[in-house]
């Protein structure tokens, strides 16, 4: 491992400003929400208008993947709260002697 950290605030790479500088504005997150909603809704509308495939199961209904993507992603992320509480242990959990084991 090479420790070559420099003090915070110094040494920003010029390419970084060029590539990612536009993300640093105050309203970036709000704009991102709007852009994602616009892209997603446009894709749903276009699918309704252009799709010629017959509906043979719920997965074929226009807009199903938009709905499913939102719910699945949200569900997976929110499951992290209870799962984290249930499954997370201290970092040295496996290195310490097991207190629940009888002598």
């Amino acid at each position, binding site marked *: 491992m090479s420790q070559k950290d420099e003090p915070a605030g110094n040494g920003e790479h010029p390419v970084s400003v060029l590539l990612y500088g536009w993300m640093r504005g105050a309203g970036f997150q709000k704009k991102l929400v709007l852009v994602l909603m616009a892209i997603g809704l446009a894709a749903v509308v276009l699918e309704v208008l252009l799709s010629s495939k017959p509906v043979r199961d719920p997965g074929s209904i226009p807009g199903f993947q938009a709905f499913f993507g939102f719910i*699945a992603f949200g569900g997976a992320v929110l499951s992290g709260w209870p799962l984290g509480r249930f499954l997370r242990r201290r970092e040295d959990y496996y290195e310490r002697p097991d207190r629940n084991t009888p002598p």
Partner: protein
Amino acid sequence: MTIERIADILANTNPGFFILAAAMFMPFARGHVVRALLMVGGPVMGLVALINADGLGIDLSVATVFGIDLVLYRPDSLSFVFGLAFMIAAAICGVYSLHRRDPLQDTSAMVYAGAAVSAVFVGDLVSLFIAWELTAVASVFQVLARRSPESVRAAVRYLVFQVLSGMLLLAGICMFAAATGETRFAFIAPTLAGLPVGVMNIEAPGAVLILAGLGIKAAFPMVHSWLQDAYPRTTETGAVVLSAFTTKLAVYALARCFAGLDWLIWIGAVMTVFPVFFAVIENDLRKVLAYSLNNQVGFMVCAVGIGTQLAVNGAAAHAFAHIMYKALLFMSMGAVLYRTGTTRATDLGGLHRTMPWTTLFCLIGAASISAIPLFSGFVAKSMVMSASHADPGLFMVWIMLLFASAGVLEHSGIKIPFFAFFGHDSGRRPQEAPFNMLLAMGIAAGLCILVGLSPGWLYRFLPYEQAAREYLASELWTVSHVLQQVQLLAFAALAFVLLYRRRLYPPERPGVILDADWLWRRGCPRFLRHLSGPAGALIAPVRRQAGGALTGIGWVGRSVFSADGWVSRKFPLSATAISSLAILGLVLIAAVLA
């Protein structure tokens, strides 16, 4: 040696042998140029040999050892795409490793790559087993290479799984060969459209053991934790090397032996889903990638289980694309580890300011694995999704794969780049990765984009080329297909932004996440100790009755095997020679009588 002779050797030698030959010189390579020539030259020689192969679907090299015919080289369209991916990955790993000289890592990485390439081009079960074991042994040194107590312990656990996999495979092969008398893939069973794919019947003797051996290496559910245990404890280069070969070799072997086996559909579907939940709460980003690897291999296993031409094409294409983008993601995290000493999300953030190129390559890997149209994951995973959606009986499986696709976007598409390079500013300002690392990442990123923009290039090499061409012409770029994928990704990304803004995204926290390995690291010892009390009480009367006999046996054992026991004493050389001859004579007499 004439040019014709060299051309003949190139055309009829397993490409993996060239990498193994280069590996033999690695411990003695001193200068950077010689190392570079060997680490990149070996795989390139293998590629040249593969391109010049004397034909597909015929035995190009056969050796007879102890009366067993070993088909050392039999390339076909299934092995071609896996071998191609392995050799490109080996060359990229070589470039990525040039910044540091560690003969142990360099040599074991090349032996590992050479063995994996050899494995996909052999034409029988015995040769596959030999190469399989060589990959296991060589890969352990990748885990050991960090030389920390944690990595040594992880390497031992890793070795246990690899040895268990090899033993099951060997036992299965022995049973199968004894019952059928055949080990060559081309002669075991009827083929799928002219290709020896899915050649084994699960009801054949030993087939279940072979499946279990392959399943351990593919990290099937409940035997998957060796992957998350070992990969994050390797060096920055070790994880890249490991991510490319082991599990994909298992996918290849599953396709070769068990394509069309229904069990694999559900095993694969479960594999795609459960890692999503673990990846959400995992703090170590290389461990997140290990869960992601599990999830992606699930897509391939599921496709192998479906077993149609489209599905087998999907498994092969996904394996190729996955090797590139997963190596790219592991390389970007390796660069972060190399520069900062950590890959914990809690300790990272804001690295894009000083590592912009690494960030860019990581984003390309993230876009590819998330299957964004025009990136490699889209053109590969689409075939698996289409193959599952085409069968109305697999609707639930398709839903599981769709859920997993949203999950992939969460853990690999967003979590990895966001928490390492953006997110909260950790205040760290490390230097950009060394040039060789950037070059390797650039090559892998270029391949991800090339395959995404021009999938015909990859589809040409798939096992069933005609089916791939038809899919490319009639389904891949249809409006509804592209729009559906855009919907899934846009709304899943929207969910992330909304949850993050409202502080509903679970915060990263340090800690160990309990997984299946808890069972043997904590559960089994607890169970055995609880059992030892009642078991001791049950045995006590027997022990009292048999006390005298047990004491006698103990005395004999100590007299023979203790440090100053009978077998430890020094004997005159002549006595040793005479006893050795006597044993040899007895063996010979037994052999003659038999």
